[in-house]
């Protein structure tokens, strides 16, 4: 499996220029103060991993992967582990970048706020990827793009209806509960989403033919 994790990272080469340009633009905008760099992890990891999906599909890698020892079994596992590692690396990189920018601008940052902000974006990244992967495994890159867009739109729509309902109908006890325990609830929810997503992806992949 280590080989397959290595492969995901070696394939970063295909994106290296784009990534460099994105990071430079982000940093410049952050220095100017027009953008917060803490949003980088939530899309950068997704961008990289989705592009790896595309490359694998384009290069017909999966058929070969299955001929390797434990190929079918380890493929999904390796991709999820790589995703978590990649998100961690990006998050740590952005934390470092944040500190450097604050030093360069001689503006002290409130570490507690900055780190919790980074933690949240890390979780958002994981949740987004957990959501995208099973769809991509099931429908392939081409079809899943449209489906992911539809699903995100549906979730936002349903979410806003629920929030409205909660605000209108539910007692303040429930809202207080969420307000007090979000720092525990959100990571646990994301972890459950991640595990569920992994199990679904594994199941889909175990039945796939190439």
């Amino acid at each position, binding site marked *: *499996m*280590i*080989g*397959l*994790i*290595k*492969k995901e990272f*070696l*394939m970063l*080469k*295909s994106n290296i220029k784009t990534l460099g340009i994105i990071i430079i633009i982000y940093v410049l905008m952050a220095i100017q103060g027009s953008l917060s760099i803490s949003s980088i992890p939530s899309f950068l990891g997704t961008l990289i991993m989705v592009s790896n999906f595309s*490359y*694998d599909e*384009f*290069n*017909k*890698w999966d*058929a*070969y992967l*299955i*001929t*390797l*020892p*434990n*190929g*079918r*079994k380890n493929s999904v596992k390796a991709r999820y582990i790589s995703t978590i590692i990649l998100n961690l690396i990006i998050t740590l990189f952005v934390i470092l970048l944040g500190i450097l920018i604050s030093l360069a601008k001689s503006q002290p940052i409130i570490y507690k706020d900055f780190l919790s902000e980074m933690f949240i974006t890390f979780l958002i990244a994981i949740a987004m990827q957990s959501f995208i992967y099973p769809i991509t495994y099931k429908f392939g890159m081409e079809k899943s793009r449209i489906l992911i867009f539809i699903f995100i739109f549906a979730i936002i729509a349903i979410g806003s209806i629920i929030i409205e309902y909660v605000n209108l109908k539910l007692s303040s006890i429930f809202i207080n509960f969420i307000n007090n325990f979000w720092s525990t609830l959100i990571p646990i929810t994301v972890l459950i989403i991640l595990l569920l997503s992994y199990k679904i992806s594994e199941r889909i992949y175990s*039945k796939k*033919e*190439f």
Partner: protein
Amino acid sequence: MKKAIEVKNLIKSYGNNFQLGKINLEIPSGLIVGLIGENGAGKTTLLKSILNIIKYNGEIKIFDKDSQKEESIIKEDIGVVLDDMFFPEILTPSDISSIMQGVYKNWDKDLFFKYLKDFHLEPNKSYKTFSKGMKKKLEIATSLAHHPKLLILDEPTSGLDPIVRGEVLDIFLNFIQDEEHTILLSTHITSDLEHLADRIVFLDAGQIIFDKSRDELLDNYGILKCSEEDFSKIDKNDIISYKKSKYAYEVLITNKNKISKKYKDLVVDKITIDELMVLMIKGEK
């Protein structure tokens, strides 16, 4: 003799379009078995079933082990080249070696780099910069560098020039020197099989219509070229199939020596695998 591959009652359907099987096939260790047939005859489907790339009905054993239940152990000893290119284009041969080191227990980095040198492949150039032939050579090098016992190769020599093809065939012949080693390969370049294969398995419309040793095939089968008048004199029972061209008849026969004696005025030529394929598929009966 140990069995390298055993296929029992294999059936694979793609809706109403195509069905492979029932296929029953036994391949003992130590042989090179060539799989031939038209495009769409089911060669790739059979190889993909053996490798569990596709789902199927039936039973497949490799090295006497169930190919699904003991897949991971079995695959440590199989080297594969697929019909389509399959490495991510951005990777270099060095990257592939580094990946395979984390995949195969027996990955032999030195052997891999030796093959790269023999094949004149730059270790640090990306796969996408390679020509079709170079890509094939890299795939072959990768299939051999973990010391497999069984090679499953789908069109391994397509796209290679005659010189490189010769080198590759020599590697396969060298590989098969070990009695435990086996090669199952599909190819359209049937002349390769005439030098290489011990056995020829012929697939047509998803069925095995022919499974014989190369010697039996080349020694026993023949092609009788004759005029329409001579053709009418041939006993129908001696004809497997025939093809009528503008000026002559080509008749596929078996028992070459017996036929030569029986029809002394007619010439029985040696047959090539290509001619056999054409006569068996397109010939009239």
